[in-house]
């Protein structure tokens, strides 16, 4: 209802009174403006209030949500695709073809809450019946001395678990456990090592590697991101089983204390089989020897192939010959002085059984006949410094880079001062000690055309590169010399028809702990490369204290012990690797030569 600005009644009244009617109009106008201002202010205030409220609501909602998110217990997103979750807490280990070497199994641990136990005495007795290794009296004491928690067994079989269930005591409780299982038993035990429990809780326990590759690759195996992806080794299960079987039979037949064998792919550096006897079951790993005086080699846990650092004997001779050829000092046909015995200062260098192959012998024959004197003369031509550098390049001065926790500890024993007599003795493998693994890696360099490739226990994908330590020609000549050792030298029993075995024997007297050498204790080694015309594989067999007693006189040279064992291994293993036996190319006879 709009009031007029100039109401007629008041205007007439004002005219009568002699007042100015315009004042009435102005007064009314003022009132109207005031009312309008009031109204618009009210509206603005109302809007501000609404705005304020909506801001409070919005920020309040955000703040509450943030507070809730901060305070809430985190939960895994439930709506994700399956397969992303952690499958196992420790990755499997498989051989190169994917056959399982180590896997996990869920089982249960048994613990007790003695405070809620109904019949501690009866329970202890019944438990001792199920587990004969538990002492009922000790168990009863632990149940009744007031403690509220007792571990009883770390792992149970399902049958044992059922029997414990049948006791029916509410104080006996089970916790889930994931345990490491090695389905192949003792096979490749030294490679795998073993695993045990780390930090233990009621609901779960850590599984940690205790030795071998389990410990060396522990971080990789426990990496949750790679739990579903098995660790593939370079080991081949069939080859490993065959090598262990033959080696075990050979060791028993030759009355050896221990044995080791390494089969390696020379091209890639992959170790296809690595055996050390006696071995153990990684499912039930024995404790280390408590006796401090015992030799480490007496324990089955000792990995002779990697940890066993021995004087490897004449197998070293080929390195002297190869280096001399590489330096251009000799050719395979060069005649070198081999007149035994050789006198150097106060030392006399003799041949096996005091023979004399001299006065002169070609380098090939020095290797084939395994002449200490001939090798010594070659080594003297090379000199100590160059000899050291060459052996270093072949890896004889450092621990092997194998993925075993034991490998870095197996440092070769090197004489402190490299005098000329050390040069002489080292050339035929005495005075410095290395492991069979070192030897295999160095022979692989010869077999691989002079390129040294790091040995590995993991399956390698793609081409491998290495360091060239000698020319391809030298490597080829060296393999030819090694082949001569088998065809007409000390390793004649190593011939396997069709596989052109080339290799070098080595017999070294064992070093006494007190100093000096044993008279009747030897380490026999045979390092072989096959097939000679296209070397692909390296096999090193080492026997600890073997004796061949088939004849009246016991024989302890590698030619009679390690060589036949190695030959049998090659005969069995080569077909498994798909290596086709082939007839050696016949030497060109007069007729073919004439026709050409």
């Amino acid at each position: 209802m709009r009031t007029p600005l100039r109401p007629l009644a008041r205007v007439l009244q004002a005219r009568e009174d002699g007042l100015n009617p315009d004042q009435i109009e102005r007064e009314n106008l003022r009132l109207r403006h005031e009312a309008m201002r009031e109204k618009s202010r009210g509206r603005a205030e109302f809007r501000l209030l609404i705005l304020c409220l909506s801001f409070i609501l919005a920020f309040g909602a955000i703040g509450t949500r943030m507070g809730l998110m901060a305070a809430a217990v985190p939960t895994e997103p439930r709506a994700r695709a399956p397969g992303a979750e952690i499958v196992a807490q420790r990755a499997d280990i498989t051989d190169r073809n994917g056959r399982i070497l180590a896997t996990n199994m869920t089982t249960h641990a048994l613990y007790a809450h003695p405070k809620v136990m109904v019949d501690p005495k009866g329970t202890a007795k019944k438990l001792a019946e199920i587990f004969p290794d538990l002492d009922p009296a000790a168990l009863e004491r632990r149940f009744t001395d007031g403690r509220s928690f007792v571990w009883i067994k770390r792992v149970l079989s399902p049958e044992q678990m059922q029997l414990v269930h049948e006791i029916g005591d509410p104080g006996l409780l089970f916790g889930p456990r994931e345990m490491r299982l090695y389905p192949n038993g003792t096979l490749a035990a030294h490679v795998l090592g073993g695993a045990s429990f780390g930090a233990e809780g009621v609901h779960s326990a850590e599984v940690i590697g205790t030795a071998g590759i389990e410990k060396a690759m522990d971080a990789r195996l426990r990496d949750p991101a790679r739990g579903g992806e098995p660790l593939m080794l370079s080991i081949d299960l069939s080859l490993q089983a065959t090598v262990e079987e033959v080696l075990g039979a050979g060791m028993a037949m030759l009355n050896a204390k221990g044995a080791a064998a390494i089969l390696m792919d020379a091209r890639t550096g992959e170790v296809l089989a690595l055996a050390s006897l006696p071995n153990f079951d990684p499912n039930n790993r024995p404790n280390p020897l408590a006796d401090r005086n015992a030799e480490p080699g007496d324990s089955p846990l000792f990995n002779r192939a990697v940890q066993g650092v021995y004087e490897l004997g004449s197998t070293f001779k080929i390195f002297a010959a190869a280096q001399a050829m590489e330096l251009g000092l000799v050719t395979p046909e060069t005649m070198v002085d081999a007149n035994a015995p050789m006198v150097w200062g106060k030392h006399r260098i003799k041949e096996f059984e005091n023979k004399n192959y001299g006065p002169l012998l070609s380098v090939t024959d020095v290797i084939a006949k395994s002449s200490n004197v001939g090798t010594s003369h070659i080594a003297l031509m090379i000199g100590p410094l160059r000899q050291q550098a060459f052996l270093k390049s072949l890896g004889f001065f450092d621990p092997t880079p194998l993925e075993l926790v034991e490998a870095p500890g197996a440092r070769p024993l090197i004489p402190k001062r490299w005098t000329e007599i050390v040069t002489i003795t080292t050339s035929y493998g005495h005075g410095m000690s290395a492991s069979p693994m070192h030897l295999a890696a160095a022979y692989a360099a010869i077999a691989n055309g002079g390129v040294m490739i790091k040995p590995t226990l993991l399956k390698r994908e793609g081409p491998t590169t290495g360091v060239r330590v000698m020319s391809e020609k030298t490597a080829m000549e060296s393999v030819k010399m090694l082949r001569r050792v088998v065809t007409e030298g000390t390793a004649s029993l190593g011939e396997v028809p069709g596989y052109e075995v080339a290799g070098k024997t080595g017999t070294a007297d064992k070093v006494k702990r007190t100093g000096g050498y044993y008279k009747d204790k030897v380490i026999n080694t045979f390092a072989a490369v096959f097939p000679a015309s296209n070397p692909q594989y390296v096999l090193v067999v080492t026997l600890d204290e073997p004796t061949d007693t088939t004849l009246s006189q016991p024989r302890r040279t590698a030619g009679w012990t390690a060589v036949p064992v190695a030959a049998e291994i090659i005969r069995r293993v080569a077909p498994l690797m798909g290596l086709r036996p082939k007839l050696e190319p016949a030497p060109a006879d007069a007729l073919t030569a004439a026709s050409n």
Partner: protein
Amino acid sequence: MRPVLYVLSFLALIALGFWAYRENYATQAALKEVQALQREIAGLREALAIQRAEWAYLNRPDRLRELATVNFDRLGLLPMEPTQFGSAAQVAYPRARLPEISFTTDTQASGEGL
């Protein structure tokens, strides 16, 4: 006009509320199902792992070797030998098939034709 709009939007609100209620419960049911399925998958994976371990255990080389020895009479299995490799030349070519004699069929065919 305006009241109709109000009524319509009110009805739409009710419909949306009903839809949201339904969706909420459907989502929760789906999540529960996913959880159950995942538990089942985990259980099956565990069973699979155990069966794989058992397979490896039953196929361990020691056992296979023993079984091959025990059943030698029936199976006659021996370790692989280098002599077992053969060459392609040792495999006999399939005998060349002689062309079939078509006389009889011809006469039959012609006989039928007559």
